[in-house]
């Protein structure tokens, strides 16, 4: 039997899911801006990030997507928890922003958006390009990524081919990887130090810093 629906036939599932996730991400981001309640903001943010992770999966970067889910969700979870803890008092749950600021920010934001969109659309090199949805699953991206992180570039052209120089140019990411890991450690220690419970030894509740006003 041959049931042929032209509309469905024209559907490019990849494009469809892209539009779905993109719409989710953008709309939820806008929701983050519009929301008053901090917890809701965080909720929208997490959903938006999840949708972005979906975009990553669509773009074939599964590892990045999973990383996005794990870290961003974890980090934002902590954000949320602290937000709830800090703003448990009624007045802080929602802090109103003056309307003038909103309008101004909106104008500025739209100008920025216009600039960015201009840059994004006008480049012919970036437009179009055939996305092959079925080619994705058979191209493991995690392995070359991991190999690159330990310093080997398997995705580079094999030696002996015409662009072996390019292979030589493309080196691994071992050093940045190490740097980032050390940086993470330092940041954790520093955060623990900053956030540790200080016993107040008579220091003023509002340390005031004077600039230039001193006669």
């Amino acid at each position: 039997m041959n049931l042929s629906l032209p509309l469905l036939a024209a559907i490019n599932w990849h494009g469809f899911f892209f539009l779905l996730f993109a719409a989710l991400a953008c709309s939820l981001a806008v929701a983050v801006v519009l929301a008053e309640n901090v917890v809701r903001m965080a909720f929208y943010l997490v959903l938006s990030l999840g949708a972005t992770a979906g975009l990553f999966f669509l773009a074939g970067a599964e590892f990045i997507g999973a990383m996005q889910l794990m870290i961003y969700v974890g980090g934002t979870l902590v954000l949320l928890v602290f937000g709830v803890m800090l703003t448990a008092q009624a007045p802080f749950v929602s802090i109103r922003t003056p309307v003038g600021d909103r309008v101004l920010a909106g104008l500025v934001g739209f100008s920025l958006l216009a600039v960015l969109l201009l840059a994004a659309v006008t480049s012919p090199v970036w437009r179009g390009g055939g996305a092959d949805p079925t080619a994705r699953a058979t191209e493991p991206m995690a392995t070359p990524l991991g190999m690159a992180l330990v310093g080997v570039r398997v995705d580079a052209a094999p030696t002996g081919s015409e662009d072996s120089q390019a292979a030589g140019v493309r080196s691994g990411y071992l050093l940045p990887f190490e740097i980032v890991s050390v940086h993470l450690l330092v940041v954790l220690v520093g955060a623990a130090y900053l956030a540790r419970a200080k016993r107040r030894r008579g220091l003023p509740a509002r340390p005031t810093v004077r600039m230039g006003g001193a006669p």
Partner: protein
Amino acid sequence: MAEYLIQSLGLPEWFAWSLMAGLAAFLILNLMAGGALAFIWAERKVSARIQDRLGPTRTGGKFGWLQSLADGLKLLAKEDLMPEGADGMLFRIAPYVSFCASFAAFIAMPFAFDMVGLRLNVGVFYVVAVLGLEVFGVILAGYASASKWSLFGAMREAAQVVSYEVPLGMCIVVPVMLAGSMDLVTIAEKQAGWFTNWYLFHDPFTFVIFWVYVTCGVASVNRAPFDLAEAESELVAGFHTEYSGLRWSFFFMAEYSSMFLVSGLAAVLFLGGWNGPVPVAELVGLSEGSGETTGYLVRLLGLANLLGKATLGVLFMMWIRWTLPRLRIDQVMTTCLKYCTPIAAAMFAGAMLWLWALPGGVTAAMGVGVPGRSRSAGEVREGWLEGPGGRRAAKARPADVVRAEVPR
């Protein structure tokens, strides 16, 4: 299987794919729901036995095996209450968040060779990440229901899960390292053959780290003795104090399905996945690659293996729950940070050294020739790719052709 449809029934490609997707989703959903029912009943009986009781006996005739179904009906009929002062939207949406999280985790979960919703080459990582998302719903619930007990429960859950993700990740990295891939299918294939090929028995470190994984898994799905989130003795019912009816049942389904998921993950990572302790199919000379129907038979056998192992894991969790007392929150944290994490790290290093010293594992070290060892993952992949279907053809299709059929 989609290829099968396309080839044999001549369905249009897009329809075949949509059909397969819908079918997979349907199966997973029913697995979760049915699994939840079955496990609730099982938990009742197990706890009753452990406490020297009978448990449900009447409903549905013998063994009260319809008890959970009756509960389900009752829950459906119950009224959904929402405390005033609660954040309505979040309150409503929280259970579905949890449920969706564990559901999404099932997408990358292989049940048998090539019997996987979506084969990701970062499957393990994906599953763990999505499991972490489940906690999110719990926290939303705890906050939204505007109740001290709920908020306390949510906070405990947040702290507990976020901190237990660390050792859990370490435990998972070990099989990934041994298999050299994050693809769950590949990991399971690497353990094909006799049970001595299971990573559980690969070397003493993996054996130790398996139990660390069990501990962390139990904690990450906050089952007893780590169920601080719903501590009925201190917090009335923890994060779902204010919930009732269908939303409450969604929480329950999410919890049981994530238990099942963690157990299945343990099975795939350490217990050989769908490869039984004894390679029956190979002994009779069959493999997934061979033939159409026989191949599917072999896969069903693998499915049975995996489900059995996962169920055993869930029962083990129940056993623990009804055996051990609940920990205090500080004890929970101590267990995670002072014991699980260092042990996991040490085992990780040990496994790494072991792999460097004798890559073959214990059996290779003993030089015991085991049938099935010869069958490497490469062949597996080859056989799978050789299998009928347009995948390799699609892959071989040059890119310009693809663009050619793209309307400009």
